[in-house]
C-alpha cells in the first residue's frame, strides 16, 4: 500500500465493497476508478451543481466534496443502484416519461435528490420541489419538465 493510503470498507448499492484510497481522493474518483460507476460526475467541483450527488447513509451528498476515506463504514447509494435489472425505479421512469433531461449530465444528481425529497416529503408542493432541488443545476434548463416529473410522483 502506498504511503498514506488506507483501505475503506463500505456498503455500495446494497453490496459490501472495499477500496484502497489516498487521503486526497474524493468519493467520486473512487466510484469511477474502482467500481466503474459514472452516474455521479464532477462538474463544478465545489458542491454547487449537484452533478455528483450520491446518498451517504441515506443523506444526499456532494460526492466531489466528500473524501473517500470518510466513506469507511458508510452505506453509499448511487444512481446505478436504483434500477432492478431492466426495471427502472419509478423516479427514473418519471424522468423518462416527462422528458426531464436533455444532455443528461445532471440527470443522475437530480434523480438522487428527488429520491431524498420524496422520502422526506411524499407529497411536495411545487415550491417545495423547487427549493429542494435548487442545489442541482441543469444548464440545458429542463426545469419545467423536471418539476412535471417530480409532481407526477407526489403522493396525492
Amino acid at each position, binding site marked *: 500500500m502506498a504511503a498514506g493510503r488506507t483501505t475503506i470498507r463500505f456498503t455500495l448499492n446494497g453490496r459490501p465493497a472495499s477500496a484502497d484510497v489516498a487521503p486526497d481522493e474524493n468519493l467520486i474518483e473512487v466510484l469511477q476508478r474502482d467500481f466503474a460507476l459514472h452516474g455521479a460526475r464532477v462538474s463544478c467541483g465545489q458542491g454547487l451543481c449537484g452533478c455528483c450527488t450520491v446518498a451517504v447513509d441515506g443523506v444526499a451528498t456532494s460526492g466531489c466534496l466528500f473524501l473517500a476515506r470518510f466513506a469507511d463504514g458508510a452505506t453509499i447509494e448511487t444512481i446505478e443502484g436504483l434500477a432492478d435489472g431492466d426495471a427502472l425505479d419509478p423516479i427514473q421512469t418519471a424522468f423518462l416519461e416527462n422528458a426531464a433531461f436533455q*444532455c443528461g449530465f445532471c440527470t443522475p444528481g437530480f434523480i438522487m435528490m428527488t429520491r431524498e425529497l420524496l422520502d422526506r416529503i411524499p407529497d411536495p408542493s411545487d415550491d417545495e420541489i423547487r427549493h429542494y432541488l435548487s442545489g442541482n443545476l441543469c444548464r440545458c434548463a429542463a426545469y419545467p419538465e423536471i418539476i412535471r416529473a417530480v409532481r407526477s410522483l407526489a403522493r396525492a
Partner: protein
Amino acid sequence: MTQTVKPALREVSRSVPRLEGVQKVTGAVEYIHHLRLPGMLYGKIVRSTVAHAVIVSIDSSAARDLPGVHAVVTGADVLKLVPSPYYGPAFHDQPVLALGKVHHVGEPVAVVLARDPHVADEGADLVVVEYDELPPVFDEVEATLPGAPIVHAELRPAGTFADLKHLKGKTNTNIALEAQVRHGDVAAGFALADHVFEDTFKSGQVMHATLEPMVSLAETRTGKELTIHTASQSPSFVRMEVARMLGWPENKVRVRAAFLGGGFGAKLYIKLEALVAVLALIVRRPVRIGLTMEEQFYTITKHGTTVRMKTGVTNDGTIVAREVRTWWNGGAFADVGPRVTQKSGFTAAGPYDIAHVALDSCAVYTNLPPAGAFRGFGIPQLVWAYESQADIIARRLGLDPVAFRLKNVLRDGDEHATGTIMSNAGVAACVESVARQIGWEQPFDRGTGVLRRGRGIAVGIKASISPTTSVALVTVAADGSCTLAISTVDMGQGSDTAMAQVAAETLGLRTESITVVHSDTDTTPYDMATLGSRSTYHMGHAVRLAADDARNQLLALAATYLGVPAATCGCEDGVISTGDGRSMTFRELFVARSGMQSGNVVGSGSFEPPYAKPDLATGQSKDVTPFWMIGATAVEITVDTETGRITVERMVTAGDVGRAINPAIVERQLSSAAIMALGSSLSELMVFEHGQVVNASLADYKIPSFLDIPPEIGVELIEDPHPNAPYGAKGVGESGAFAPAPAIANALEDATGVRVREMPLLPERVLRAIRAAAGTPLEDV
C-alpha cells in the same frame, strides 16, 4: 430543390422519446468525460496570471522534481515538434502553448503531466513564470482607437476563408475583421425621418458553463498517427485543423466524440485538441486534459459587445433608416469571432423592412479570455440592441410596441438589407403568437408600492450560416436492420433521435429500430459542425438523401427478384411489396441476392445548400442564407423597486420551425433556450479585475437554477414547412434565446419607466436606474 413529401408522415412529426433516454436516467450514457485510457497521463495547464506580457522565463525545475511528475511541457518543447504551432478556425493566432508572449489571463503557458491527477495539480503550482508586463486593453471600443496597446503584432488569417485573405500580415491593429452592409442611401433615409434615435447598447461577457467541462484525450501508437477522443461539437474540423497544423494527411488523425454534457457553442472548432495531440506526440503516452469549471471561464466565452444604433422614423411609425456599428470583444484569440462579426452582423438592422441601411461590424482583439460561438452566434447581442430601441421608439411616438413591430416587420417578398428576398420567415407570426400567449391586449395587475409589474415583447432574426456541408451514410444490414452514420454530435438537443426519424420516415422503418453511430472521423463522414441550429436542415437533408439512396437500392433488388418495376413497389416496415400483393422483407432480398444473410446496402447523401457570396464592400447577396430563424419572447415581470430585483412571472416564446420533426423536443428546445437566456439577461456576467475573472465559480457566477424559473412558461411552434428543407424542417436550437433579454428590459420600462441599456439587468443596475430617474441617485462605490 424539390422533394416528394408523402401525404401522411408517420415518423416525422411524431414526438419520439429520445433514443438514449434510458442510458441517461440510469447514468450509463457515454461521455468523453469518463474515458480513461491505459497508461494515460493527466495534464494540468499552467496558466498566465497576467493579461498581457512578455514571458521572461519559465522555471519548471521544482515541478519536474516532484515525485510522480512525468514531464513538464512548454512552448519551446512544442516548437521542436511543430514549426508553426498555431491554430484557429478564422485566424491561426492561438499557440498550442504560449510562445514569447501571453495575451490574456488564463492563457496556457505550460502543462504538467503525471499519472495521478492530484500530482499534476500540485506540480502546476510549482512552475514559476516570470513576466515583463505590457499595457493591456480590455474594452472593445478603446482597442480600436489610435494608440491602444496591440494584442497581436501581426494578423494571421487562416486560409480557409477567402474573405479574410486581404488581412494577412496586417500590423498595428486590433481589428481582426470589418464587415459592412450598404442598402439604399442611409443619409437620404435620415433626411426623410421625422425623428432620429441614437442609443448605445452593451452586453457583458458570459460563459457557457457546460456541466460536462471541456475534455480531450489523445493517443498515438507510432507517433505518425493520432486518435483524439474529445467532447467536441465539430470532430471533422478538429481533424482538419490538427492535420493541417502537423502537416499530416487528414486520414492520419482520427477524432471521435460521444454524447456531450452540453455544448452551447463552447465545444466548437478546436479547443483542447491541439494541445493533447501535441502532448501525446511528445511523451508518447495517452494524455487527458479535462478542465475545471474555473478554467472554462478562461477558455471560451460569449462576446461582450457594444452596439451603437441610429434609427430614423417617420411620424406614422415607419422606420426609414438605420445605421448600426457593432464592436465585438473577441478577447485575445479570434476563434470564430470574425464569422460572428460578418454572419450575424448583417442582421443588425433586425427583422424590419428598412429602405436605407448601413451596418458596420468589427471583430476586435483585446486582452480578455477569447470569445466565440454561444447559443445564438451573436444574435442575442444584436437583438438586445434593436429590440430595446424598438420600444424606446414606440414609446416616444406613443405607439403600441406590438403594433409598431407589426407595422415594420419583414414579410415574405420584402427585400432584406442584404438584398436577399425574404421567404418562409414568419416574423409577424411569431410576434402575434407571443402577444396572444401573454394576453397583450388584456389588462393585468400592474402592482402597487414597492412591487411593480410590466410586460415586454421582443423578436429576433438569424440567418443560418452558409455555405456548409453535411454528409451521411445509411447502412442496411442483411437482417434488415438500419444504422445511420453521421458526424452530428448529440449534445442534448436530440439530434440522434431527429436524424433517426428522418431516416426512418424515408426508409419506411420505425425510428426506435435505427442505431445512430456517433461521430468518429474514421467511420462517420464529414460534417461542418454541430452549430448554429444547422443540423436539422443540413444533416437532415444529407440523411434523407442517404436513406433515399439505400431505399432505391433495396427497391432495385426487389424489382429484380419480384419481377416488377421498382417504381411500382412500396417500402414500409422493412417489407417491400408490389401492387399485386406479393412482398419480400429486406432480409429476404439479401438472401435472394447472396444465397445467405450477408452483405450490406449502403446509401450515401451529401448536402450543401445554394448560396450567393455577399459583396465584400456592400454585403449584398441574392441568396444570403438557406433559411431564416425567428424567435420571439414576451414576458410579464415584477420589479422590486427597493432592491432592483426582477422576477419573471410569465414567459412565452414562439419560434418559426418550418416543420417540427419531433414536436416535443422542438418545443423544449425553444423554451429551454429562453430559460437559459434568462441567465445572460438577469444574472450572468463575468466580472474582471486587471483581466482576471473575479467570479469564475458557480458560487458567484449565477446560472439559472430552479428558483429563477418563471412559474408560467408558454411556447408555440410556428409551423410553415420550408419548401427546400428536409420534410420542411428548419433549425431551432437557438431561436428561443434571441429575445428574452430585451423583452425583459422592455417590461422593466413598462413597469417602472426606466430604461437600462446594458445587459445583464443586474439588480444594482436596475436600482441605480430607478434611483437616478427618481432624482435620488445611489452613490458610486
